[in-house]
């Protein structure tokens, strides 16, 4: 703070204005800057909301209207329909979205992934913070570094692990898991959990290591096991941290395209919404009645969760997550 104060005082020494003029020009200046501030704020806010609003409005316009003119015509010629939604969700024709099934896939991918990531990260963070062992610092630094390593580094070998198993030389010591149909969710879960552990352990460790040491000491003195300390002391206290990591993890998995594309592929039994939407945007890029409603379906869940739990999300961001 002292470094910040120094240049200010030297500045003020140079900028001595005639005493009479100060209140006048000061007031004018203030008005100007506040007007500039208002205009800037409004311009940015408009630029940041209008594209989404256009998508939202379009998704309720009849397909012919969407093709005929821009969504802003909605205000002069309002016509509302839910046809786009019912078509993109439930129609069985191959060209439509069939998004209801993909929506369920997104849910099946997301829920177990978030649960596993939370539990395993919390256990590991607790162990690193409160079970003393040699090299704890190095383990923590290693995990922190892994956080920044691009997950692209792991994709090819991890996919091969699932398709070929583990071999030493020519002998196969762990055979490839024969996963068919919905069982392939397991590979997507596995990949997501692995990729989210570094940031999860890091975030939760930041929080868990700040808990008062006297609490743990006292419980240890009474002969409590780490399992009991974790359940009865740590768990009740780290609720907010768990919430913020859970939101991170949820948004990340729900919105992910790359991991799903590689481990679920185009398989309609397993692929999530994002994969299907990206596919529609590629093959049916001009059919905006499907794209707008489809995009909105994928957006609505994370936005609701995000708005409801914004506080925790921001706290998580401020705790410093660099997702890899």
């Amino acid at each position, binding site marked *: *703070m002292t*470094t*910040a104060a120094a240049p*200010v005082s030297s*500045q003020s020494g140079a*900028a001595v204005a005639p005493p009479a003029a100060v209140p006048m020009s000061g007031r004018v200046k203030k008005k100007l800057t506040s007007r500039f*501030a208002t205009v*800037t*704020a409004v311009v940015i806010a408009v630029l*940041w*909301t*209008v*594209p989404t609003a*256009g998508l939202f409005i379009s998704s309720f316009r009849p397909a012919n209207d969407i*093709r*005929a*003119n821009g969504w802003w015509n909605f205000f002069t010629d309002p016509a509302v329909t839910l046809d786009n939604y019912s078509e993109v969700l439930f129609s069985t024709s191959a060209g439509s979205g069939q998004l209801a099934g993909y929506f*369920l896939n997104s849910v*099946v991918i997301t*829920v*177990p992934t978030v649960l*596993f990531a939370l*539990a395993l*990260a919390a*256990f*590991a963070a*607790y*162990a690193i913070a409160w*079970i003393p062992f040699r090299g704890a610092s190095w383990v923590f*630094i290693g995990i922190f570094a*892994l956080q*920044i390593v*691009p997950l*692209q*580094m*792991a*994709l*090819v070998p991890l996919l091969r692990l699932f398709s070929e198993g583990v071999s030493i030389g020519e002998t196969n010591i762990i055979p490839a898991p024969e996963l068919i149909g*919905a069982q392939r969710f397991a590979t997507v879960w596995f990949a997501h*959990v692995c*990729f989210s*552990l*570094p940031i999860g352990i890091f975030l939760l460790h930041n929080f868990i290591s700040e808990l008062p040491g006297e609490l743990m000491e006292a419980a240890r003195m009474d002969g409590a096991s780490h*399992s009991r300390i974790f359940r009865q002391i740590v768990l009740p206290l780290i609720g907010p941290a768990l919430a913020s990591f859970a939101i991170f993890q949820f948004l990340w998995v729900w919105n992910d*395209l790359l991991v799903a*594309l*590689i481990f679920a592929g185009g398989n309609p*039994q397993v692929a999530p919404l*994002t994969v299907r939407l*990206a596919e529609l945007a*590629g093959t049916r890029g*001009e059919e905006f009645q499907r*794209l707008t409603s*489809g995009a909105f379906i994928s*957006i609505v869940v*994370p936005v609701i969760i995000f708005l409801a739990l*914004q506080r925790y999300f*921001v706290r998580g961001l*401020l705790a410093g997550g*660099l997702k890899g």
Partner: protein
Amino acid sequence: MNETQPKLLMLMYGIIAFFAVVGILLLVVDRAPKRGREKVQLVAFLAPALLLLAVGLLIPAIRTVILSFKGPFSDTWVGLDNYAWMFTNGDSRRILLNTAAWVVLVPTLATTVGLLYAIVIDKARGEAFAKALVFMPMAISLVGASIIWKFVYTVRPADDNQIGLANQLLVLVGLEPYRFLQDPPWNTLFLIVILIWIQAGFAMVILSAAIKAVSADVIEAARLDGVNAWQMFRNVTLPSIRPAVVVVMVTITITTLKAFDIVRTTTGGQFETGVVATALYDQAFVFGEVGKGSALAVLLFVLVLPIVVYQVGVLRSQREIR
């Protein structure tokens, strides 16, 4: 809907597995024999995570480095051929240039916009609402955002009604419709806009918190000295929030390097818009060029390596102070 049942079954299995794993781990810790109890507890808590990190990240990353020196079928050693290809082939040089444009423009512009917005709405009426507006894109998937902007950029022939906002504005001011996504080299710029649109909210939230943490005394002192808004920003706010600015820039840079979804959803890497992350996917998973794909992955890693080293340095100094 006969496909629904196996999915719900899998979901149930997943949740059951979760409770089973957590239950067994806690049980092991509880029932550990007195001798070596501390060790058993440590292993039960830490080993599952470390095992997954090793199997899912560490070992695959090492194998990727090895694969990058091998041919497309990973059965022959090709030395540095894959890397030579990366820097000499015309297409892949385009990809490296595009990636450079992304990495330079997204962090700087997203941070600038986020900082500007954080300052102008600071202590304004309805600040929380104003923040939520710009922060909202953070919750939207990159795929969703790409579709939103693809719609904005849509182009129709000049004598038709425009349905995309961007071209409507062009037509309104008397210009010809422009093919924002198809015409290189500027189309990359319009894709970059999408990521700036998403990341500015992140920058804004972090920097806004940093601005609010600037000591009130310092601000009051500066105000009494009669500094104007610009001087206040330049000499008071900016020096105090510099660490936060660095964190934001670093984080956005890492995100940008791996930007894959936007290019893939809007253009599929066509029209000379490819970046390292999309080229990596195409090479390794579409063209079956595993060696080249791995070399591109290694390139991504090498590009973030300085950041890793720097951050680890920061972390170690923090932990020593404690």
